[in-house]
């Protein structure tokens, strides 16, 4: 019985989102666990978004933007990188294993790389198991695949 992690990806519109589009156009298969949220630039990412994602049931988070020196807005990705460097220290303190968060640079032409990032992050989070450090009110939906190969949706209720 395998646990299927739920991963949220905060990506920048100009590079990674377009790179993910290219992966789609090229029909590159990848793990279905990642949900992309589009932002204009990684510089827009508030570290609270990442915390919120974990609080709402994500098992992992991907942050991805333009390569250094290539940011569409010149310097947004540098701010994101600096913010993230500081945030990593805070993450352990608040109980999130830093391995659950992947930071990557994927350009608009790197469809293949995006697929690698997705697959790698999914495997990594799968090995770490479900994120249960934050109990949360409300319903959390997760997926399990039964051993007989049948896909089944299992709803877990938390109070």
């Amino acid at each position, binding site marked *: 019985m395998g646990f299927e992690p739920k991963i949220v990806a905060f990506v920048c519109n100009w590079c990674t989102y377009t790179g993910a589009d290219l992966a789609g156009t090229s029909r590159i298969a990848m793990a279905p666990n990642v949900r992309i949220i589009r932002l204009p630039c990684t510089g*827009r990412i508030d570290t609270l978004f990442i915390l919120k994602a974990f609080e709402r049931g994500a098992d992992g988070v991907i942050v991805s933007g333009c390569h250094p020196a290539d940011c569409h807005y010149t310097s947004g990705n540098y701010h994101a990188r600096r913010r993230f460097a500081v945030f990593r220290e805070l993450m352990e303190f608040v109980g999130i294993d830093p391995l659950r968060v992947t930071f990557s640079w994927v350009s608009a032409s790197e469809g293949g790389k995006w697929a690698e990032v997705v697959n790698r992050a999914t495997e990594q989070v799968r090995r770490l198991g479900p994120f249960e450090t934050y109990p949360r009110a409300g319903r959390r939906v997760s997926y399990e695949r039964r051993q007989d190969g049948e896909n089944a949706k299992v709803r877990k209720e938390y109070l």
Partner: protein
Amino acid sequence: MSRIGVFICHCGENIGRTVDCARVAQSLGAVPGVVHSVDYKYMCSDPGQALIKQAIQEEKLDGVVVGACSPHMHEKTFRKAAASAGLNPYLCEMANLREHCSWIHEDRELATEKAIDLGRFIVEKIKFNRPLSTIFIPVERRALVIGGGIAGIQAALDIADGGRDVILVEKESSIGGHMSQLSETFPTLDCSQCILTPRMVEVAQHPRIRLFAYSEVESVEGYIGNFQVKIRRKARSVDETKCNGCGECQKSCPNRKIPSEFEQGLGNRTAIYVPFPQAVPNIPVIDRAHCALFRGRAKGVKKAVCGKCAEACGRKAIDFDQEDSFVTEKVGAIVVATGYQLYSIGKEQDSEILRGYGEYGYGTIPDVIDGLQFERLASASGPTGGKILRPSDGKEPKTIVFLQCIGSRDRAKGIEYCSKICCMYVAKHTMLYHHKIHDGKALVFYMDIRSGGKGYDEFVRRAIEESHALYLRGRVSSLKRIGGQIRVQGMDTLSGETVSIDADMVVLATAMRAQPGIASLAQKLSVSYDQHGFLNEAHPKLRPVETNTAGVFVAGTCQAPRDIPDSVAMASATASKVLGLFSKELLEREPLIARVDRLTCTGCFHCEHVCPYGAVERKELRDARGRVIRMVAEVNQGVCQGCGTCQATCPSKSVELDGFTDEQIFAAVNAL
């Protein structure tokens, strides 16, 4: 409560084969706030769009979510459809169910669940979307072109012929740039000045072009459509309105031994001079550093040491008391075409990363010259009347060795890039040399031959086959003066042997670099540049003539090494961008930009610090009585590009990026 309409597209088989669209529509229809949820085969088609428009009107929708392809594909299409049905276009968003879902997964169950999640993110986000309207900024429909070389001239002519006024600023006394110094141009061997000077005259006579020669840009303020430019008109010491270009002043000047910059030091000029006979404008300038009268003044001498030019001038145009003056102009767009300089072969370099060539004598060997100097020797209007003669003794060189890649492609010397034109002009030089000195021997030491343009490789072939230039693949380790000749010690890697030649002249094909002082000009324009001083384009593939500063465009060699046809093409491209910008009276901008809540803004200005565009301005916040409470930030609607770095940085969350506010993003994340 929201009234959101959800429209799931099958996209034929593209989405429908993998994602159960009907179930997605059904599932999203159950989300609170969604009042209408359907699926259809082709949402972007006319009947598909009609479904949306009809639903907007019948169901009085206040939000539309289209689950289909990537928003990069059809966001504009659906926004237009929504707008035509009376719904603000920014209340319409797309969920990417194709590129990010159906095309990359195979399991129908998992793909459908993912599609429902992706749709739900957008549904929850759109509940916090605000209606936004296009921002209109007025445009001053006049352009500024900085630099009067071939690129600047072409841009100015194209913009002016397009019906708009142009101001052309050139720092030298005449326009024309380096192209006016060339003898003949590859691959046609056209006489350079013959094809250039008609354009120069056209610029001077064009009713829509105002030419400020011997002038520089002092400061630039404002933003796209509304720049204020201050231009410094340097003092020529000659009244332009009176001078008629007769040349008597130059004939009378007693100081005739000043090395001429135009002749690259191979010839002399007078203290009051016009750089070359075909100069535009044909008005002289006094070089105050060398003029006897001004040197006297600098020493404090009361009586004028010399005044021969003023006496010779029949129009009383000489004005020894003239000073720099300033002009301020309003323009809507700026084209930068400041050109290049060559890597100096001397010891003094103006950049720390350049090492110079000690092994080639640091420029102390008189018959070792660079490409532009060879052009002046070959040019019929040059210091030797077009005869190739050695600078040391004026004799004809019977053996000339050309060295390619001097400075270029050489990390040890500070430059890794290729200068693009040298392979071509060295081939041209061997041909010019052969045409003038039939029994002369030309040898070329090369690493590669880069001749990629139209007719270019055929041209190099001609140099080898018709002009009998001998091409040796290898580099030269040293140049030494032996008697009256230069011993060239090199390597021929194809035969594996060292080569030693006693040459009468050596021509170094030195690297093409950005102009000195480019950093300060770039900073005035808020344009970024690389470690070599070349200005940065907005996107190397798809936006080669724009910069990341809206309204500022680049053309020619100031952006990267290139030849004349590419510079001309680029200049015309900037003109088309400028004319496009000027085609409307008001500039339209997408309203997805930042906005400051002045009441909660504390005035820390972290946003100003991180904004890559300088779009944050400081404004006074006043109370009802007009007293200043504090300074607060305000985002300039013309400059902000909508990255959102300010919002992520703001400690009080007072600045919001419309279209991607915190509320919207948190709503999407909460939908997990």
